[in-house]
C-alpha cells in the first residue's frame, strides 16, 4: 500500500524551507486540521439541516424553504443567525452554572470524535491506535451533559427528558459497541484507517457490509437511537415532554444542542461508511483503475485524483445514509419507551452477541475472507 499524499510533511517541509524551525512549523501545523474539521462539521450540519427541511417538505407535499437563496439553500444560515442574536434566557429558579455547562458538555465530545474520521490515507487529524474505541468512550460522556441540563433547568419535563436521554444512550451503547467489536475483530485493528484499508482490496465486493449485514443493521439502529432521531426521539417527545431536556433553552444554548444533534448524525453516517461501506474506497479497485488509464499509482496526478475522489466518496456515502435517516424520520412513528428499552435490551443485545460469536467462529473457519 502506498502512503499517499502526506500534507503534514509537505507543509512543515515548506515552512522549514522558508527558514522556520521544525518545532515552530509543527506548532503552526497543529491547529490547521482541527480548524478544517470544525469548519467541515459545521458545513456538514448546514447541508443536513437544509436537506432535512427540503426532504421533509417533499415527504409532506410542501415546497419547504424557498426564498433564502436558490432553493432555500441559505435557510440554515438564516436559522443560525437568528439563534445567534436571540436573547439568552436563564430561568430564574434554574442553576445557572450547570445550565450553561450542560450544552457545552453535550457538544464537545461529539466534535472531539471527528478526530478519528478518515477522509483518506492521511486525511484525518490523528491516526490514534485506539481509533474507534475513542469514539465509543467519548460518546459515553454525552449523557452527563444531558442529565446536567435536564436537572439544572428545574423543570419536570426537562428532568424526565434528561433521564430518558441518558437511559436511551446507555442502553444502545452496548449493542453499538458489540457491533463495532465484530468489525474490529475482522480487521485486527481499532484504527479507522486500518479498518478502511482492509475493506479496499477488491472494490465494493470487499466492503464489510457483505460480511457483517446483521452488524450493519444493528449499528445503524443504535446510531439513530444515539442521535435521538425519530423512531427513537423519546427524550424530546413533543406530545409528552414539551421538548425534553431542551425545553428551557433559548438562543445560542439551544443552538448548541441543535448543532450537537446534527453533528452527531453526520458523524454516525460517516462512521457507518467507514466501518461498513469502505470509507474513502471506490466501488472499483484503484489499482485496476490506474492501470486502465495507463498511469502508475505513484503518479502525482493519480494521487491527487485518488485523494479528492476519496473525500467525495466518503461524503457521498455518508450523505446517502443521512438521506435515509431523514426519510426514516419523516415516515416512521415514534416507539414507546418500553418498546424502545425492549428493543435495545431484549432484541439488539442478544442479536449482537450472537453476531459477535458467529463472526469469531467464521474467522476461525475462513481466515482468508474474515481476516485471520
Amino acid at each position, binding site marked *: 500500500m502506498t502512503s499517499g499524499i502526506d500534507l503534514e510533511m509537505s507543509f512543515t517541509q515548506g515552512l522549514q524551507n522558508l527558514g522556520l524551525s521544525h518545532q515552530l512549523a509543527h506548532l503552526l501545523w497543529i491547529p490547521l486540521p482541527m480548524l478544517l474539521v470544525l469548519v467541515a462539521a459545521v458545513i456538514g450540519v448546514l447541508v443536513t439541516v437544509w436537506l432535512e427541511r427540503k426532504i421533509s417538505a417533499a415527504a409532506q407535499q410542501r415546497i419547504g424553504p424557498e426564498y433564502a437563496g436558490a432553493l432555500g439553500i441559505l435557510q440554515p444560515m438564516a436559522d443560525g443567525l437568528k439563534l445567534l442574536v436571540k436573547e439568552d434566557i436563564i430561568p430564574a429558579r434554574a442553576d445557572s452554572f*450547570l445550565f450553561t455547562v450542560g450544552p457545552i458538555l453535550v457538544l464537545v465530545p461529539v466534535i472531539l470524535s471527528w478526530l478519528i474520521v478518515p477522509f483518506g490515507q492521511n486525511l484525518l487529524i490523528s491516526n490514534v*491506535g*485506539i481509533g474507534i474505541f475513542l469514539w465509543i*468512550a467519548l460518546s*459515553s460522556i454525552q*449523557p*452527563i451533559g444531558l*442529565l446536567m441540563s435536564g436537572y439544572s433547568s428545574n423543570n419536570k419535563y426537562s428532568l424526565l427528558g434528561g433521564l430518558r436521554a441518558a*437511559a436511551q444512550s*446507555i442502553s444502545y451503547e452496548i449493542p453499538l459497541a458489540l457491533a463495532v467489536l465484530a468489525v474490529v475483530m475482522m480487521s485486527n485493528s481499532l484504527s479507522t484507517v486500518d479498518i478502511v484499508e482492509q475493506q479496499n482490496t477488491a472494490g465494493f465486493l470487499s466492503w464489510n457490509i457483505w460480511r457483517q449485514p446483521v452488524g450493519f443493521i444493528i449499528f445503524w439502529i443504535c446510531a439513530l437511537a444515539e442521535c435521538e432521531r425519530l423512531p427513537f426521539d423519546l427524550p424530546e417527545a413533543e406530545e409528552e415532554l414539551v421538548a425534553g431536556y431542551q425545553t428551557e433553552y433559548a438562543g445560542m444554548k439551544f443552538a448548541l444542542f441543535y448543532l450537537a444533534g446534527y453533528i452527531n448524525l453526520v458523524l454516525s453516517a460517516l462512521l457507518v461508511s467507514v466501518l461498513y461501506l469502505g470509507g474513502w474506497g471506490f466501488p472499483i479497485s484503484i489499482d485496476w483503475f490506474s492501470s486502465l488509464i495507463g498511469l502508475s499509482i505513484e503518479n502525482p496526478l493519480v494521487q491527487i485524483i485518488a485523494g479528492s475522489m476519496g473525500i467525495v466518496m466518503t461524503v457521498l456515502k455518508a450523505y446517502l445514509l443521512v438521506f435515509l435517516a431523514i426519510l426514516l424520520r419523516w415516515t416512521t412513528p415514534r416507539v414507546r419507551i418500553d418498546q424502545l428499552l425492549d428493543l435495545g435490551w431484549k432484541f439488539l443485545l442478544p442479536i449482537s452477541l450472537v453476531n459477535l460469536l458467529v463472526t469469531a467462529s467464521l474467522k476461525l473457519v475462513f481466515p482468508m475472507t474474515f481476516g485471520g
Partner: protein
Amino acid sequence: MNLAYSAELICFLILSSIIVAGSLAVVLLENIVYSAFLLGGVFMAVAGLYLLLNASFVAAAQILVYVGAVNVLILFAIMLVNKKEKLKPIEGLKTRKILSGAICSGLLVLLLRVSIITKWNIPGPASIGEKATERIGEHLFTDYLLPFELASILLLMAMIGAIVLARRDISNEPSKINDFNNGKSLTEKEIPLLSENTLK
C-alpha cells in the same frame, strides 16, 4: 526544554490541580448533585493523566467505565430519589468532621512520606505506545486469566443481584400496584416505579 516537554508539563500541572481541587470539592460540597458532576470531572482528569503517560487505551477505558457508566449511574440514582427535604442535623457533626479530617490528613502524610522515601526508577521503562492494547489483551488471556475470570464472575453476580432486586413484582402482589382507590400512588416507596406491571 523543548516544545513537547513543556506542553506535557503544563498539561500535567493543570490536570493534577483539577484532580486535587475537584476531589476536595467532591467531599466538601454540601450539594450532592454538584459532588456527583465534579466526580465525573475528576475521572476525566485522571483519564487525561493516563493519556499523558501514553496509555491511551487505559484512558479511553477510564472514560467509558468511570464517566460513562459509574458516574452516570450515580447521577441517575441521585436524580431519581432527589427529594427536597431538610436533612436532620447530625449530632456532634463538628467533632466528626475534625476526626475524619485528622484521619485523612494522617493518610496524606503517610502517602507523601512513601512517595518521598521510595527511590523511583526515573526515567521509567520506555512506553510501548500503540502496542499497549495488544499487550493488555495478551496479559488478560495468559498470566492474568484467573483474576480476569474472577472479576467477570463478580460482575455477573452483581448483575443477577440487580435483576433480582429490580424485579420486586415477584414479591409484591400485583394488586398493590396502581391501587389508586386506596389512595396509593406510584410515588409511594414500596411500589417500584418501573416494574413490568406499570409498563403494561
